[in-house]
């Protein structure tokens, strides 16, 4: 039986993924990195180094300021040359640590042979608490995009039966998970095995969309005739398959109750990138200091890069050969949910650097966005994976009627952008619903605070 979730769209024909999944992952190590102390949307850290300090690769440089953040480590060895204070778009202040390395690391580096990249290793020596502690120390957060600290997911008191490993990569253009599964299959399987141990789960499903059949068969080959409680599932290609709620619905045919985490129905969802990072932490002894980033779209050589955390976006674009379109729109993440970080002509002006949850850097040709009146075709309602009526919430938000937004369950929006994608009137439904959702949460927080 095919596994489906409610709603969803087919945003592309697959030609966008071919841009970047034909060449192997390239290594790129910059001379200097800018490590932001805000690695995920709501996770802030405090820097524990000062300007002038010498750090070596893997040293702890940031500790969590509160719930929702994880440790940050130096991704290259060198000297801390600067600590910049910046504010995000919501006005919250955080620091950015700049590290410059002395020697040219790129040239003289032989990768040591890692055992866990070549075969399934025995993990019986690790206890559950030990693995969770290592997740915490290694600064492991969700590498798929949300960036929620993984150890918090595993410290749940709920009984966990199944682990779902998200290899769906439903966003168009991005191929970093695909390439990771292709080149680091053993590390991922070992990581998944560690996840099962950490949650004391019965079984893990690695969920892969059917546009990545090749890696699904590779992974199947790896686990065949070994007695691992892991199964590879091939799901029909559909956006937003990779949303944790949608994945739970598609695989386990079960809805996660509103306002709770998937652990409420006995499951935890992790990205394949997180599984690889866990194997690196526990089996390789290296904290999260690098990740694979897809650089694609209107650049000369679209490719996947293995880069240290903190690599500047401008350098990555230059490494890929620069823009090929006149005026470009640079997007951090995928085309459906990513943030636009620059619209312009010069790649040098791009701000920001790779964070632990940056899955891609996408360059698209800039286009004009104009909205026209809603014609009530109902497409948004049909594709909404949460079952909302986006056009009604859109009207309510424009009218400023936040109570009506709440009655229409704007809080259940997962901000996937499917509604804006299908809208023939090109209305920015997802943007306004997300705005309404954040406003409702802000009001609720204020009320509970008083």
């Amino acid at each position, binding site marked *: 039986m095919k596994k489906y979730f409610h709603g969803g769209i087919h945003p592309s024909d697959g030609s966008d993924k071919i841009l970047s999944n034909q060449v192997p992952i390239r290594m790129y190590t910059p001379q200097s990195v800018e490590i932001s102390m805000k690695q995920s949307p709501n996770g802030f850290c405090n820097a524990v180094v000062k300007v002038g300090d010498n750090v070596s690769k893997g040293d702890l440089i940031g500790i969590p300021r509160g719930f929702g953040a994880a440790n940050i480590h130096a991704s290259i060895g060198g000297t801390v040359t600067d600590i910049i204070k910046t504010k995000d778009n919501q006005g919250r202040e955080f620091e950015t640590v700049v590290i410059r390395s002395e020697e040219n690391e790129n040239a003289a580096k032989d990768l040591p042979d890692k055992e866990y990249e070549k075969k399934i290793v025995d993990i019986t020596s690790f206890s559950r608490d030990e693995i969770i502690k290592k997740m915490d120390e290694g600064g492991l957060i969700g590498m798929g995009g949300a960036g929620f600290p993984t150890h918090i997911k595993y410290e749940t008191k709920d009984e966990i039966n199944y682990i779902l490993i998200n290899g769906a990569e439903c966003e168009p253009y991005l191929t970093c998970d695909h390439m990771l599964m292709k080149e680091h299959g053993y590390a991922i399987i070992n990581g998944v095995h560690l996840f099962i141990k950490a949650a004391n789960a019965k079984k893990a499903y690695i969920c892969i969309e059917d546009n990545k059949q090749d890696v699904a068969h590779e992974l199947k080959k790896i686990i065949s005739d070994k007695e691992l409680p892991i199964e590879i599932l091939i799901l029909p290609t559909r956006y937003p398959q990779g949303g944790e709620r949608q994945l739970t619905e598609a695989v386990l045919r079960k809805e996660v109750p509103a306002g709770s985490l998937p652990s409420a129905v006995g499951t935890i969802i992790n990205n394949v990138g997180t599984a690889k990072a866990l194997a690196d932490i526990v089996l390789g002894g290296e904290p999260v200091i690098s990740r694979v980033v897809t650089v694609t779209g209107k650049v000369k050589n679209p490719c996947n890069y293995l880069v240290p955390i903190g690599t500047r976006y401008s350098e990555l674009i230059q490494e890929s050969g620069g823009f090929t379109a006149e005026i470009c729109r640079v997007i951090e993440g995928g085309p*459906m949910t990513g943030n636009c970080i620059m619209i312009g002509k010069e790649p040098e002006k791009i701000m920001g650097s790779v964070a632990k949850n940056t899955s891609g850097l996408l360059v698209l040709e800039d286009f004009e966005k104009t909205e026209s009146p809603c014609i*009530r075709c109902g497409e948004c309602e049909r594709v909404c994976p949460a079952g909302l009526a986006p056009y009604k919430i859109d009207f309510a938000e424009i009218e400023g009627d936040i109570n009506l937004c709440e009655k229409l369950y704007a809080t259940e929006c997962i901000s996937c952008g499917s509604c804006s994608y299908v*809208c023939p009137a090109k209305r920015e439904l997802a943007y306004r619903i997300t705005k309404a959702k954040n406003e409702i949460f802000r009001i609720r927080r204020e009320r509970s605070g008083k």
Partner: protein
Amino acid sequence: MKLKFVERLHGVSPHITMDRSTKEIMQDVVIALTPAFLGSIYFFGINALILVLTAVTTCVLSEYVWQKIRREKLTVGDWSAVVTGMLLAFNVPATTPIWAVMVASVFAIIVVKQFFGGIGSNFANPALMGRALLLFLWPSTISGYVTTYHAGTDAISSATVLGLYKSGAQITEYSKWDMFIGNIPGCLGETSKLLLLIGFAYLCYRRVVNMAAAGAYILTVLLVTFIFSNEGLFQGDILTNLLSGGLILGACYMMTDYASVAPRVKVTLAVIAGLVTAGIRLWGKLPEGVSYGILVANCLSGLVDSIIKPHIYGVNVRKNKV
């Protein structure tokens, strides 16, 4: 118009959108109506052409003039007024005076569409409201049904097949095949079921409309008229009911209308419209009930939409483990 055009957002996600706009949808509907339009010229002659062109021009002009006077953003370019004009002309017989079509068009666009907020905000189908206006104020203007050119003689006035059927007369003049291809007296666009269905197939292929609502409407009407027919229980003439009136035109192009039929509950509303239509056909004074049936569904649209609650992901779901 604060509600319709707000601040310009340039850099917000998603950064890709589907390759389809309001204008393209409306153009698709016009393309789908074109076979039936050409058919109406073939069956009813130059009058059909004049009426359709009058209706379309009046609709587009009145929308343009209204928006110019009100200094609103012009939406004439989206072709929706063209669709309204064509459907309006399709709903009147060939003998309708030109002035009547013009009045109906102005009423449809200005009162039914623009008074309620323009495209997407009309509470009922503008074309049907235009027809209803004529039926109320000047019933004689749109009751002069004539035979087609190809029925053997010159155009002479004649009752519609549905009218004959209702009065209990035997229908010997027209074969079922005539009814299907459109060689019968009736409104301009409703007679040729073949050409309407060709257009509808195109709309379904382009995924502009969903077949479910049209199907539910037709099935309800046929089922009810079959069970409670004038000849006795379970004696109704299914094919005559299906092919003689405006059932197919209404089901394919008006029941599937976007704004006036709430999208999520389209099928429920189609069943309601079907019951009303069948009721009028069986027990009403008029022989035909399609336009009123659909207008009733239009008026109930908001109510039904609020009564039938959607299922929201994760709301009212019990917490139990898998």
